[in-house]
């Protein structure tokens, strides 16, 4: 796509990606792939977070390499979603620092973190229910667009040009996610599985360096889980986006992730390859259960 090259340069100007190009696809490949080909690295250093005397995260440290697909597992209440909230600027860690491609992000507001190229999905869907699928995805591209009130009010010129261009980009992702049929429907009326895909699409169209996925297959059946896994694998391999994945489906994480981190009571239990993690005695005891195979 010729229009995509403009984005690549514009996101570089914004100072987003400085991580290495990981497993980037050749530029002539699939329609959406050349628009974002860099992943950022993520470094969590001694992050603690407590609310009202309760420690949610306790000295969490790990590193995610650029382009890696990194899984986080752990029982409910272990602090996985809180960690995501710390990364995306919704929570302010009590201690510690987080770096995205060597840029400190603790203390930045969510909007500023988003501008660095961090996109995320939420455990309990956070879609704009009154807006249709197209517009939800267009909001994902908000940070890549420039139209303000004045240009919007005039419409002809930049506002119209931008609308046309970015709707085209969104349409590709809509097509990729199999949402074309429902693109004009308000997302509030869509079934749960489709809403999950819309949220993923909204994160994808923002051309992220780092994608935080909070339980992307929760509540999905085996078929849907399989398809989502394939999609995530493609996103990771073709586009080279760094993905951090929180998920309870350990089998899926095992198949998908390059490395896995297990968290319990806000503390990192172990970081390693999927095989190492699921055989770790503390992980089995605290999370998987003795009869897990």
């Amino acid at each position, binding site marked *: 796509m010729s229009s995509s090259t403009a984005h690549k340069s514009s996101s570089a100007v914004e100072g987003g990606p400085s991580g290495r190009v990981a497993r980037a696809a050749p530029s*002539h490949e699939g329609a959406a792939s050349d628009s974002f080909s860099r992943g950022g690295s993520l470094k969590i250093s001694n992050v603690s977070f407590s609310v009202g005397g309760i420690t949610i995260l306790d000295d969490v440290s790990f590193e995610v390499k650029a382009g890696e697909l990194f899984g986080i597992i752990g029982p409910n209440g272990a602090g996985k979603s809180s960690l995501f909230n710390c990364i995306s600027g919704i929570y302010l860690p009590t201690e510690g620092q987080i770096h995205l491609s060597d840029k400190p992000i603790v203390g930045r507001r969510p909007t500023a973190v988003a501008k660095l190229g961090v996109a995320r999905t939420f455990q309990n869907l956070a879609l704009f229910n*009154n807006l249709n699928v197209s517009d939800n995805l267009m909001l994902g591209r908000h940070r890549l667009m*420039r139209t303000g009130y004045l240009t919007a009010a005039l*419409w002809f010129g930049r506002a119209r040009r931008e609308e046309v261009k970015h709707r085209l980009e969104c*349409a590709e992702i809509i097509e990729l996610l199999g949402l074309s049929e429902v693109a004009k429907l308000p997302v509030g009326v869509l079934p749960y599985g489709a809403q999950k895909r819309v949220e993923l699409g909204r994160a994808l169209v923002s051309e992220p360096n780092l994608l935080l996925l909070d339980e992307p297959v929760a509540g999905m059946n085996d078929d849907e889980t399989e398809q989502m896994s394939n999609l995530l694998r493609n996103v990771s391999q073709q586009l080279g986006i760094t993905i951090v994945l929180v998920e309870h489906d350990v089998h899926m994480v095992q198949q998908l992730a390059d490395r896995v981190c297990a968290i319990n009571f806000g503390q990192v239990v172990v970081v390693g390859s999927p095989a190492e993690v699921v055989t770790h005695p503390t992980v089995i005891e605290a999370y998987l259960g003795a009869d897990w195979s």
Partner: protein
Amino acid sequence: MSSSSAPQAKGEQGGHDAHLDAQPSPQHAQLKPIALLPGLDTKFSTLAIALIIIFYPVLADNDFWTTVLVSTGVFAAAAIGLNLLTGYTGQVSLGHAAFLTVGSYVAAYFGATQGLWMIVWLPLAGVFGAAVGAIIGPFALRVKGDYLVVISLALLFFTAHVVRNWESVTGGNDGISTSGADLGLGPLNFADLRIFGHTFTREEGLFYLAWIMVGAFALIARNVVRSRPGRAMQAVRDRDTAAEVLGVSSAQYKIAAFVLSSAMASAAGAVLAVHQRFLTPTEPLLELFVSIQFVAIIVVGGVATVYGAIIGAFLLTVLPETIKTYTHWFDFNIPIWDKKLVSSSGIEPGLFNPGSFSNFLFGLLLVVFLLLSPQGIAGWIRAVKGGAIQSFWHNLRGHLRGRWFQRGEPAASRSRA
């Protein structure tokens, strides 16, 4: 995940995919930006209404209804602004009348007292309104919902106080005349309009001025809501945390919504001031009732639609006048506790007089809409477009044939929510 996604993803791996290369294909509606007037029916009805407005003063030589329709235009223009704030950004404000007041006194001071041209005082009213909106807007960052309503209410009382006491500008309790304000715009003078040999009265000129403003504001509002800032406003309304995570600054868009909405209200207030010819602090504009009326306009017309504000303004300005004018025709000779329901003359005993009866109907209308039709008249229009009428006949026909519902899905269930 539908079956189509997996093979496409594989296609990407293969390096070429005819299906994806074929993009964009014109049949995909989501590729196009949202149209200014989506659909042929919308285009035609807008054109029809525009023609009615253009030719109304020529064809109907009725000064009374022209006067009413000037207020309709002013209220519609201001309600478009409120709908941007309340309908699209979710910030409920009861201080909208205060912004109109600001504009009114800008018109009085700069237009009548200082004698500036209209091309100066009318935009100036918008600028002053925007400035006041920019002062009030940041409050919306600290408080939400009911609390914001109370703060916006305080603005109303504060404005009333300023108007009473800043005598050098507002004339204090004695009021100030606005009839001297210039109404010229290039070769046109709205106070004495002559087009193609037809001479219009001052009221008719103001009718055009007010409705040109409605058209301009509707165009601006529609363009804003169908592009980036409008989407951001709606995102802030629906889920501000999710909006922030996408890079949409909720603070920025809340304040901007206040600025835009109060600028529109203020410009509308300026035209209203000229229309009224005289401003006093006791005028009803600063009563709480008028601010509630603005909320009622967008609720009855349809929240988060541009045309809803115009429909609502039409209903809520024309309806009371209709009731007042035609009460004596119907006489409402329904005895309640040995009284008539409405006494038109005021001599015979009655539960209401025409004025209070129109207020009563107004309150009733608001409650009925809030309870039964929260999407307002825009909701009806959407239902009709979604096939509610077809499905009604469809079901009726089925009923007459002895079946309550046809086997097929009724069209209404396919309508957009």
